[in-house]
């Protein structure tokens, strides 16, 4: 493929950057953005020569020049919103349309006193350098040096959410962060930003949905940073159901303290080209992480997941289960990286990844990558790429269920096995319903 040179990137996006409001932000924010833009320009979009992007060509993104997104233009009723965003409509929610916070559609009541939620735009307005919450945490986890997409986001992110869960606060309802792209985002780029700091012993859950309301050929480039304190538990669910012709890159960088838990689920069925990065750093002893996911793609869709679990401290456990169902000419990629530091003795890591191919032209590339420098660890990985199990098909047929219906039900069952691990009932049931209808073309009753 052709590399898009750094100089071209710089020229292409200089105008868009200049059009952003950098005059009403504190100097340190403007500086951060300028540095990130310079880094993005210097690095350029990754090519397939970059090991982390070997199976995913971002040429369709690099070739285009995305504009800054306009504010939302398509009316959105509460019912339509509930339809777009899988989950429980009664959950506290923060809605962003084309990257901008929409107070009229949002409702963050119900989270309780233990958590402070602010939009990024509001938090940045008069944030003083190194003296308040946002300046102390923003851009501290998500490294943008050498990382084109994270640098791109850091330079362009105008809005997003800043969440501070206070010590010991147990937040029962999850916060639903809904990113809607509408016609105002067509041909444009959206750079959502999320920052969550969960203080020690707190519990918090967040659902991030990426959906389209008549958006076309837009590019979502999101970055999230989650710092999990000692003994805290954070669940993050990502639901990527972008428009079929959209582009999506989402990076989540997590760091975990001692005895903490991080559970992540990533669902991806949208976008022409998508890449999800979920990176967690087990920095404190006996921390636990679970990264699960499901992608359902067909046509000419391309979906790539990269996970990276850094075992820095001893006695930590990581579990990963990713599944994909691919039809048509779809191309799936799963790259699971595990690093075990020399200090991280008694690490217990397990990674599993299964793909189901429904057509002869669908393709999946899977690459487990284990780098282990400690000697007393247990790390395993297993991957399968296959078709439906003949014994299971025979079982269905032997009950009188026709071949086509048997295949549909078993395909759904394959997907449902990982959906079952979603601990939020409304989200699990919603995604099960979507998967069921997708494969059986009937409603689940």
């Amino acid at each position, binding site marked *: 493929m052709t590399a898009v040179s750094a100089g071209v990137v710089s020229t292409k996006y200089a105008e868009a950057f200049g059009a952003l409001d950098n005059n009403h932000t504190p100097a340190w924010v403007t500086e951060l953005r300028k540095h990130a833009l310079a880094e993005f320009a210097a690095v350029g979009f990754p090519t397939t020569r970059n090991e982390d992007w070997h199976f995913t060509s971002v040429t369709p993104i690099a070739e285009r020049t995305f504009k800054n997104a306009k504010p939302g233009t398509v009316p959105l009723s509460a019912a339509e919103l509930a339809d777009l965003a899988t989950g429980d409509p009664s959950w506290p929610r923060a809605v962003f349309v084309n990257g901008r916070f929409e107070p009229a559609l949002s409702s963050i009541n119900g989270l309780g006193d233990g958590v402070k939620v602010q939009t990024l735009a509001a938090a940045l307005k008069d944030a003083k350098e190194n003296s308040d919450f946002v300046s102390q945490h923003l851009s501290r986890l998500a490294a943008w040096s050498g990382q084109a997409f994270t640098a791109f986001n850091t330079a362009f992110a105008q809005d997003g959410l800043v969440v501070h869960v206070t010590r010991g606060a147990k937040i029962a309802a999850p916060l639903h962060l809904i990113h809607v792209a509408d016609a105002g985002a067509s041909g444009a780029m959206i750079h959502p930003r999320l920052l969550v700091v969960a203080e020690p012993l707190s519990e918090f859950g967040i659902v991030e949905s990426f959906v389209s309301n008549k958006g076309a050929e837009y590019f979502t480039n999101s970055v999230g940073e989650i710092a999990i304190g000692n003994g805290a538990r954070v669940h993050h669910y990502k639901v990527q159901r972008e428009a079929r012709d959209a582009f999506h890159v989402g990076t989540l960088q997590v760091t975990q303290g001692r005895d903490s838990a991080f559970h992540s689920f990533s669902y991806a069925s949208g976008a022409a080209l998508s890449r999800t990065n979920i990176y967690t750093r087990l920095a404190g002893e006996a921390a636990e992480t679970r990264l699960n996911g499901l992608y359902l793609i067909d046509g000419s869709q391309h979906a790539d997941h990269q996970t990276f679990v850094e075992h820095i401290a001893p006695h930590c456990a990581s579990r990963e289960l990713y599944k994909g169902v691919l039809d048509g000419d779809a191309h799936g990629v799963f790259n699971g990286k595990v690093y075990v530091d020399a200090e991280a003795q008694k690490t217990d890591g397990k990674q599993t990844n299964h793909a189901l191919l429904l057509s002869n032209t669908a393709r999946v590339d899977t690459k487990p990558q284990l780098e282990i420098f400690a000697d007393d660890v247990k790390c395993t990985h297993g991957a399968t790429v296959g078709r439906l199990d003949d*014994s*299971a098909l*025979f079982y269905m047929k*032997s009950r009188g269920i026709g071949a086509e*219906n048997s295949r549909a*039900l078993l395909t759904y069952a394959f997907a449902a096995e990982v959906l079952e691990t979603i601990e939020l009932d409304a989200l699990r049931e919603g995604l099960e319903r979507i998967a069921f209808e997708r494969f059986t073309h009937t409603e689940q009753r």
Partner: protein
Amino acid sequence: MLKIDNIHARAGEKEILKGISLTVNAGEVHAIMGPNGSGKSTLAQVIAGHPGFEVTSGSISYLNTDLLDLDPEERAQQGVFLAFQYPIEIPGVTNAYFLRSAYNEIRKARGEEEMDPMEFLDLMEKKLKLVDMDVAMLHRSVNMGFSGGEKKRNEILQMAVLEPKLAILDETDSGLDIDALRIVAGGVNALKRPDNATVVVTHYQRLLNYIVPDFVHVLAGGKIVKSGGKELALELEAKGYDWLVEAA
């Protein structure tokens, strides 16, 4: 009802059934016994249409049609049922949905109307009692997290709902404790009618104390080496299979 004539079948290159003939009439219970590897389960699976086995010669006629011409789902729709030795787990598909899909496909094949979910639930409540299963089982995924006994009971529940003409029970007794065995056998017996037939495939005589066969056949090396009445099962219990296998 079922007429198997000199059937030969193989899995890959390996010939497993080497000329089996067997006639089962409506109202009869047949037991197929034999040591491990004798071909008992293969025979059961060939009747149900498992694609892993190739019938190389011989014929199977069922209700005067050529059974080997039919796909597994067509056989089921015509009333053939196989209770699996190892029932398959299907995550995310509830027992209720699975059973109703099967039930309705069979009704459709017979030109009958589909049953709606509420009506079906009423039917299920009656059938559940047969195998002493709780209604909660309906809302669990098919066989997921079921104990060995629950899986076997679930097979009999499916049989009770689908009301087959020809039921083949493949090692349904394996792994069951005596209470579960009684429940399973009780279910099978309650479903027995003059117009249907049952073939029980088993290694042990124990099940046959509860499901009493009219005929017992001993399979060894892919052939029926001896046939007799129910007393043959007792003889096998006392003497083992060796004397028959050696004689063959």
